[in-house]
């Protein structure tokens, strides 16, 4: 018994002669947040639609919670919540009426449904607008209503397509918190996005899409090691002495590169921050900044596509 909720093998989608999704393999584990990243048109949404059985599969196999989305789409859709890109609701109905319609489609008994609707709205902090028309909702509120729908559905997998696009930073932060909340409730979450830095903070693992193929897959740190090379980058800002020489003398330091005014980017094979601080202070320099540089997905992404272009 594997703990994968989604297993994809050699999934293929052809639009005429173009391969929108080109024989990808993908496993998503129970209770993790998985990011599908990549530029627009790389095949993320098409992959998602195939997982849900909303578009035909040209080849390969998909297994979602033990069901085949081609043959058993109803079983899959009963267990998977989907928040489409720029989700829409019926504007002339209230939030409650919108969710009630979904509950009826899911054949949730009426008495049960009312409780689940109010609980779900509570969990996305929309309880106070439950009876307001959706036409008065901001974009962030609509996205949260979409999450509420998934919560109400008690989905085992949540698939979110570009959930943060078009949101202001505060709304994005709130939405990401809610996505973490889904994970805490044991839901496997699949997020597709082209906004890397925001998604990086919540994803356990990511897959980088490029031209219908998965270019890279793994945790952010693994990808960084793979693309940027192993190492522990830190940023040092100091003055007063020959910083570069001082830094190079520290054990474990591999490269020292000047970065900006009085700043240095140091890559070492371990965390050398304590040694750096000691060396600079003891040799009479003044240390103004010492920061651990987390490998950023943005960097991985940019570097990867640069290399891919060079290789081509």
């Amino acid at each position: 018994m594997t703990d994968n909720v989604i297993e994809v093998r050699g999934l293929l989608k052809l639009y005429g002669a173009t391969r929108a999704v080109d024989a990808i393999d993908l496993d998503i584990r129970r209770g993790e947040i998985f990011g599908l990243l990549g530029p627009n048109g790389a095949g993320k949404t098409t992959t998602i639609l195939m997982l849900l059985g909303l578009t035909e599969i040209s080849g390969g196999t998909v297994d979602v919670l033990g069901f085949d989305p081609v043959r058993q789409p109803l079983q899959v859709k009963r267990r998977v919540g989907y928040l489409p890109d720029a989700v829409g609701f019926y504007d002339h109905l209230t939030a409650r009426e919108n969710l009630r319609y979904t509950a009826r489609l899911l054949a949730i008994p009426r008495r049960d449904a009312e409780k689940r609707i109010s609980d779900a709205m509570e969990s996305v902090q929309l309880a106070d607008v439950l009876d307001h028309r959706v036409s008065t909702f901001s974009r962030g509120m609509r996205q949260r209503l979409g999450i509420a729908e998934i919560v109400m559905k008690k989905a085992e997998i949540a698939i979110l397509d570009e959930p943060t696009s078009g949101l202001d930073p505060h709304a994005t932060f709130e939405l990401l918190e809610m996505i973490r909340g889904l994970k805490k409730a044991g839901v496997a979450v699949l997020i597709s996005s082209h906004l890397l830095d925001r998604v990086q903070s919540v994803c356990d693992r990511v897959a980088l899409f490029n031209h219908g193929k998965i270019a890279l897959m793994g945790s952010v740190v693994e990808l960084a090691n793979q693309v940027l090379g192993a190492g522990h980058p830190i940023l040092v800002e100091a003055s007063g002495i020959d910083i570069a020489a001082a830094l190079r003398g520290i054990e474990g330091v591999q490269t020292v590169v000047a970065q900006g005014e009085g700043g240095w980017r140091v890559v070492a094979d371990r965390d050398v921050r304590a040694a750096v601080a000691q060396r600079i202070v003891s040799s009479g320099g003044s240390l103004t900044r010492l920061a651990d540089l987390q490998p950023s997905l943005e960097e991985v992404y940019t570097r990867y596509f640069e290399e891919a272009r060079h290789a081509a």
Partner: protein
Amino acid sequence: MPPKARQREGSPFTGLGPVFMKEFADHLSSARMMVLMLFVIAFGAFPVASSLQQLRTITEQDSYLFLRIFTSAPESLPISFVFALNFIIPVMAIGLGFDAVNSEFNRRTLSRLLSQPIYRDALLLGKFLGGLATLAVVLTALWLIVFGAGLLLLGLPPRGVEVARGACFLLAAIAYGGVWLAASLLFSVIFRSTATSALCALGLWLFFFLLWPMIASAITMGFAPSQIRSAEEYLAVEQLGLVLSRFSPGTLFSEAVVGLLNPETRTFGSMLPAQMRGVIPGAPLPLDQSLLLIWPQMTGLIAGMIVVFAAAYVIFQREEVRA
């Protein structure tokens, strides 16, 4: 390509009930419905009122007086209620259906809706039945109002056979509405823009309403021999004209209505002297004979509705969900 033998599981009608209920409720509470009702009242009330005025002055014996409310065209305004219905119903049906599917698409609710455990079959059929039910409610209300007005103003109750003929007429009207509802649904599946879809549906209606009779007669003229020498030739030409004009659902509806509400009707074409043998001119047919007469028209209307709906269904199944 995967083997096509793989069959999907689960009933295609899962979720049909909720979709139907929502569409029905949406239609009944919408502002559009109010506008359509006003439209119906404006175009329906006047012919009925005038024909009632005229019927009150009739003193001679008429066993189907009640049905004349529907068919008589007053002198002041040469439009009978039935004729008014002939264009009220299409406009109403198109008004109910032209944005059924593309508005879901434009509101971006379609992909969310289809990610719930329903098939597209249920969505399309639910929308169609919701519209048809709305149409049925409106037409029945209208029918009851006309009957009620007749009761009040004529002061005599309709006979059972008149009520039965009236009920059949109501069914024909609903079937006629169904054809146009299916057509507007088809356009709402084909076109992403609601305006284009409305325009196309109205254009098709105008084509059948205004242009088709002329085109049909032009074609008939073209095929007719320069000199008609025998009754057979005359009949053949007339038959061609009838067949062509019956491509228009409006013709089918009118013929069905004439057959039902004018019990004297025996045929829609000419009658040969041989067929006239034993006929008492002006004598009404019994209801079952009238039903036999209009059976092809009714079948045609219902078949047309199903064919157009099937076309919408096939196209909708192939459509991509994504924006």
